[in-house]
């Protein structure tokens, strides 16, 4: 029987929303306070959902120690206490939480092989959240 397992993680990072293809005025108009040249930060909560059959020997979709270890090394370790704009994946991409969501999905999709990746969901603040499911049908 297929079960979907969601684990929630936290990291803190700074970013600045700014597009080189827009003028200074357009950037200010588009991104508002998020265009502050000195940047600003958030506590990002990331929810990672994986799925699969429940293993009869362990009762698990995926051993949490494996998921936690992999995510801490490859996701949290990469982003926690960093300035997102200085990371190569955001050299030419605005580090909005939409783009961050897609990037974290790609990292997991490429490297984490112990369960099927369903979705990445990020809360940028208590008021905003973003989800990316790749080619998977959206979960309710």
């Amino acid at each position: 029987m297929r079960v979907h397992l969601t684990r929630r993680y936290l990291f803190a990072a700074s970013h600045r929303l700014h597009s080189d293809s827009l003028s200074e005025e357009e950037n200010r108009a588009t991104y508002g306070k998020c265009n502050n040249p000195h940047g600003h930060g958030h506590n990002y909560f990331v929810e990672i959902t994986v799925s699969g059959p429940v293993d009869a020997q362990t009762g698990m979709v995926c051993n949490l120690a494996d998921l936690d270890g992999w995510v801490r090394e490859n996701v949290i370790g990469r982003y926690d206490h960093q300035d997102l704009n200085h990371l190569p994946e955001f050299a030419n991409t605005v580090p909005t939480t939409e783009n961050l969501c897609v990037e974290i999905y790609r990292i997991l999709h490429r490297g984490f092989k112990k369960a099927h990746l369903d979705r990445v969901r990020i809360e940028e603040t208590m008021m905003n959240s973003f989800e990316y499911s790749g080619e998977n049908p959206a979960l309710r």
Partner: protein
Amino acid sequence: MSSLVYLTRKAEFSSSHLYHNPAFSAEENKRVFGKCNNPHGHGHNYVLEVTVKGEVDATTGFVVDLKQLKDLMHKEVLDALDHRFLNKEIPEFFTLIPTTENIAIVCWQRLAPKLTAARLHRVRVYETPDLFADFYGEA
């Protein structure tokens, strides 16, 4: 116009459990299950979310009578699991390891056959605020 609406009811139960597979050696149990293998068990405040779906009834405006759903959740799940040691007191977990995944499946199996007023859509079980399992009745 279709008026399919999803309704979720939440409840809490507190139980203890441990992860142990008698087919594994002691070392293997420790390696696979880590701290969760402590033979004396440990506990959680579990949060159960039951989502049902259905058309909105034209007379009552309900998908389901919440009182009925609440009573069913109590009778089939909460009264049985709350303040219990899952491995020792709940028949399903005499043989099944009471992981969050399996608890979600067992809650579904206890509720689905008794739920007549609406269709069960999802059972979500939170073990902690940072970990939950969803079961949609998928094979």
